[in-house]
């Protein structure tokens, strides 16, 4: 390839990549701009691609007319607790699956993997009945329990993968020095795996934060709503007020954006771990 051709190729590549970036980012830009426009500008022609007058009225409305503070708090509590519990369970379960050969190990792995392929919706109705029997409807604790169950297989399997990359010798050395298995695990292995554990926690957190269908099935009282449930009721109750909706979208997406950016490398690994092998 001669020099000019190469320059042309590079230019074409840059244009295509730039165009795709624009397509990817525009929806986010648009929702942000919408959330900052006064109502009169949202619903008027010609459309403005930058607000003529920047306003935070939609954000204020969310917290004054709707109980967005309550929803935000609920989402935070449920996601933090569920992600914490599920990560701990993954740390324990992943360890045994990575380090021991025992009867039934394959069966446990299979039972976990199967849940990842079957749509959860099949269990939605019976789950409602179960929650009703356990008196957990309209309670954050109920949501937490179901979210933990939903994420246990993922957390356990991904943790197992992380353990397998830590040399067994590291642990054995500690055990030779007289530390028990559990102490060796806590003192030696876990510090090495800390980034992986953090990534698992964040991923689980974002899943809970975003979850919709379980939450709308179990929750309809105002004081137990999470953000997605509240936003869902914005749709059905009124003709959509797009200013508030845009503001709510921005509020709910910003934390996940920041968190996902922090663990991007691990998401790529997690996504590709199962499917891509040599």
């Amino acid at each position, binding site marked *: 390839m001669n020099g000019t051709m190469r320059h042309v190729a590079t230019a074409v590549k840059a244009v*295509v*990549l730039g165009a*795709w*970036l624009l*397509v*990817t*980012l525009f*929806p*986010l830009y648009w*929702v942000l701009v919408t959330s900052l426009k006064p109502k009169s500008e949202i619903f*008027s*022609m010609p*459309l403005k691609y930058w607000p003529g007058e920047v306003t935070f009225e939609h954000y204020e409305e969310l917290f004054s007319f709707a109980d967005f503070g309550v929803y935000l708090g609920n989402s935070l509590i449920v996601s933090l607790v569920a992600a914490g519990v599920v990560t701990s369970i993954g740390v*324990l*379960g992943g360890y*045994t*699956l*990575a*380090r*021991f*050969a*025992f009867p039934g190990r394959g069966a*446990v*792995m299979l*039972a*976990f993997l199967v*849940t990842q392929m079957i*749509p959860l*919706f*099949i*269990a*939605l*109705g*019976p*789950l*409602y*009945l*179960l929650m009703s029997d356990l008196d957990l409807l309209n309670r954050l604790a109920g949501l937490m329990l179901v979210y*933990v*169950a*939903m994420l*246990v297989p993922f957390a*356990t399997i991904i943790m197992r993968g992380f353990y397998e990359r830590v040399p067994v010798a590291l642990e*054995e050395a500690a055990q030779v020095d007289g530390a028990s298995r559990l102490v060796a695990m806590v003192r030696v292995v876990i510090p090495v795996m800390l980034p992986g554990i953090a990534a698992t926690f964040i991923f689980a957190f974002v899943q809970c934060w*975003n979850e919709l*269908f379980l939450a709308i099935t179990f929750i309809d009282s105002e004081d137990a709503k999470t953000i997605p449930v509240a*936003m869902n009721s914005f*749709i059905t109750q009124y003709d959509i007020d797009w200013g508030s909706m845009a503001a709510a*979208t921005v509020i709910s997406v910003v934390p*996940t*954006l920041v968190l*996902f950016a922090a663990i*991007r490398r691990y*998401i*790529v690994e997690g*996504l590709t771990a*199962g*499917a*891509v*092998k040599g």
Partner: protein
Amino acid sequence: MSTARTPAGRAFTLRRARFILLCLLPGAVFVALFTYYPMIRGAVIAFQRYNLFDLTSTPFTGFENFRAVLAEDRFWTALRNTGTWVVVSLIFQFFLGFGLALLLRGHFRGRGLYQAWVFFPWAMSGFLIGLLWRWMFNGQFGVINDLLLKAGLIDERIGFLATPGWAMTSVIVANIWYGVTFFAIMIMAALQSVPRDLYEAASVDGASRLRQFWHVTLPHIRPTLALIVLLRIIWILNFPDLIYSMTGGGPAGSTDIITTFLIQQVIGGDYGRAGAVGLLVLGLLLAFSVFYLNATRFEKAR
């Protein structure tokens, strides 16, 4: 599955068994109680008359729920729509994702930053993405109408989400936007798995870039591609979130897919029928996976 790397020379002792049990028990209990139990109960309910608004009698009725579901036009519409939704979304996601992966293969300045930005749809839920596009496709104040008008591609605004044909196109566009990144990431990883010396050997033999791609890259990553596509098909089929918030399956059921149909049954309180739809979906997925895996294995053996 790889064999467990057990510390050398350690037998399976009672103490170790207790440790294993304690570590696995919490996870197993959660999954058994809140995943397997409801799934199994759902399968049983499929053969019962089970309506949330009349739980006084829930007799077993054999295949009555299945018959009722299969007799419904909306079910068949949803099934057809599922086909369109999966196939069209997949084709575009695949080829655009493949293109993006190839463009991102070499090193260039700002590549990491670029990937970080292009990655962002993954942080969003299907529900939020559906809302975003619902607003952009709005028939009156939607930005897509505005852009198309400005570009001179249309003469008057289109009620995208209110017109059956356009509604399906719209949800698929949103789904493509969401899924391209997934394919790009997976295919980039697959491309990296091709050993470099294969390329070197090929270029020594004087093969052009295109021929290298066709004869070295593609055969090497084909099994991975087949698996990625299968996972993706299952995933798109199980992905009602975006449609739910964008059109709710409307107008007139024209964007209903099998899983939004299932959710409507649950919301309607008819758990018997919901169970039946669930089992049908499961059967469909299973049959398709077996068929697909056989077909791609045949491909490999040839």
